[in-house]
């Protein structure tokens, strides 16, 4: 079995560069919501030592000194470019798992390619020409190894963006795995790495040679799976269909502190409307909802207050109006005046598929009319743009909205924002 992991390089920055060629070769970062933290960096910025996730205000001096260009995240653009990449890759193999916005696994078993390294180069060439985005390809026998192969393809220039671990002589392979820290392994991460180091397991090779049974007893079954995967036996299958989510969370930090209940009401209504839309998209009903508000975490001078409330619904629902009503009822109960709130959000849980739903004796069943209203709402918003038709309770000024002060245009999703050519 051979699996390829294809990962877009510096994905958000690369998307910006496709439509704004002036950014090529310049240091560019993309910032998180509210322009808070660095979430994507061009190679030029990485070379300056800017780390992933650092607060942007801490980089101001460096940015001025080196002319780093910062963009707010433009998720409409990134999602469209991601869909294009996934669609092109999906056509290259009979089995694909879209793992995140910028990476996917392909099963190469059905691909007629005598040489997978060459196939990897063909993938890179095709994605680069068709979308303008650079990608790296890692190929190996399991998903865990493919991730590591991708890591090597990305970090080591001699691979030219494609690394096939199976094509590598075993001695060289061990040598390279010896030089990669165990924290880079998929599923290990920064929390488990120090615990493994206590056992003398520091490199990927150390973990590969560790005893799966004893580490399973000490950690968990997923540790055993990881070790077996590192040794080439498939324990983590390709998931072609994403399983329906068990929770839907919608939350955002505010562009400025919010103190009044009526503004929190607007924000909660807004988030719940988005959550309900996602719920209907995956054809589920929610059995419970959770609403939370919190003050800032970084400003020690301000009094802090965090609270949340989980509310069961009398009967499962996917009706925005009903969910909003319950959420606002909950919000009223946890709201305290006199605090400067920084974030609010909702979560839908106890999700059940629309099939086989049980009605409630004392609750009016969701009428066909309500279902039709929601369907119409979703249809209009899909066609005319998100939020075209919404509950008035979301408010019209929405001054709490997040800051996105330097966002690029939605080049591929709005007619008014198409790129210009002279």
């Amino acid at each position, binding site marked *: 079995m051979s699996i390829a992991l294809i990962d877009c390089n510096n994905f958000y920055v690369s998307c910006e560069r496709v439509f704004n060629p002036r950014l090529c070769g310049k240091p560019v970062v993309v910032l998180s919501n509210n322009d808070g933290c660095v979430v994507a960096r061009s190679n030029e910025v990485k070379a300056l030592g800017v780390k992933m996730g650092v607060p942007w205000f801490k980089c101001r001096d460096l940015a001025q000194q080196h002319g780093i260009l910062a963009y707010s995240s433009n998720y409409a653009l990134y999602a469209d470019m991601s869909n294009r990449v996934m669609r092109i890759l999906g056509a290259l193999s009979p089995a694909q798992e879209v793992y995140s916005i910028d990476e996917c696994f392909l099963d190469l078993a059905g691909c007629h390619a005598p040489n997978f390294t060459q196939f990897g180069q063909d993938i890179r060439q095709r994605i680069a020409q068709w979308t*303008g985005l650079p990608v790296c390809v890692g190929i190996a026998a399991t998903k865990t190894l493919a991730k590591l192969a991708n890591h090597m393809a990305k970090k080591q220039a001699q691979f030219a963006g494609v690394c096939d671990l199976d094509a590598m002589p075993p001695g060289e392979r061990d040598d390279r795995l010896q030089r990669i820290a165990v924290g880079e392994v998929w599923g290990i991460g920064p929390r488990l790495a120090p615990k493994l180091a206590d056992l003398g397991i520091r490199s990927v090779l150390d973990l590969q040679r560790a005893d799966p049974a004893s580490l399973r007893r000490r950690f968990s079954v997923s540790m055993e799976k990881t070790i077996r995967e590192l040794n080439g036996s498939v324990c983590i299958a390709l998931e072609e269909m994403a399983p329906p989510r068990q929770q839907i969370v919608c939350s955002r930090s505010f562009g400025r502190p919010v103190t009044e209940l009526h503004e929190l009401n607007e924000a909660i209504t807004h988030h719940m409307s988005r959550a309900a839309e996602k719920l209907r998209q995956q054809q589920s009903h929610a059995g419970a909802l959770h609403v939370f508000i919190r003050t800032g975490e970084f400003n020690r001078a301000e009094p802090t207050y965090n609270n949340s409330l989980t509310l069961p619904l009398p009967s499962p629902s996917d009706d925005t109006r009903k969910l909003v009503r319950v959420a606002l009822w909950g919000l009223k109960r946890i709201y305290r005046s006199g605090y400067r709130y920084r974030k609010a959000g909702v979560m839908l849980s106890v999700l059940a598929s629309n099939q086989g739903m049980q009605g409630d004796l004392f609750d009016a069943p969701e009428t066909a009319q309500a279902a039709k209203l929601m369907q119409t709402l979703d249809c209009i918003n899909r066609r005319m743009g998100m939020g075209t038709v919404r509950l008035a309770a979301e408010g019209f000024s929405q001054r709490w909205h997040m800051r996105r002060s330097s966002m690029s245009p939605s080049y591929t999703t709005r007619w008014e924002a198409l790129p210009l050519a*002279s």
Partner: protein
Amino acid sequence: MPPRGGKRPNAGRKPGSNAYGEPTVALRVPRSQEAVIRDFLSTLRQQRERGEIDPVTPLARPLPDAPGLERPLFLSKVPAGFPSPADDYVEAWLDLNERLVRHPAATFFVRVEGDSMTGAGIYSGDILVVDRSIEPVDRSIVVAALQGELTVKRLRRQEGKVRLEPENPDYPAIDVPEGEDLVVWGVVTSSIREFGR
């Protein structure tokens, strides 16, 4: 004394004595389509009540998942008993996307700004359909990235020399010096001009 059990002739409602005026069947339907089907049936019932018979009322379509623009070639409404002789020939919906966009994942729209290509029928404000999957050749109309800007020109590749030619005598041709790599952003496959916008 009557026998116990068995058939009781003429008991119960008469077949067809429902709102539709004909025998009905019980049917399982997908929940997501319930509203659509109820709506269809209620329309049908009202039409029957009003005495309109309209066997070709199309089902309301469920949420479309692809934003395609479909224009029916033709669709005739006919009273029962006189089927249109053309109905057998309904075969296609013309979709402009299908015509103009051959590789959706690689196709981008770009708006023209300026008059450098009027000779090729490309005017300021037009929307170019740019297909990045097509290999540019000599004489392709391309969008190219030049000094950080996107520009639309005719690509000329002759005797190892690369040139971007405008199609307007007021604009100079751009010679791409050897060594400077020209990034062809994509090949223009059509240009859309909307009148009265």
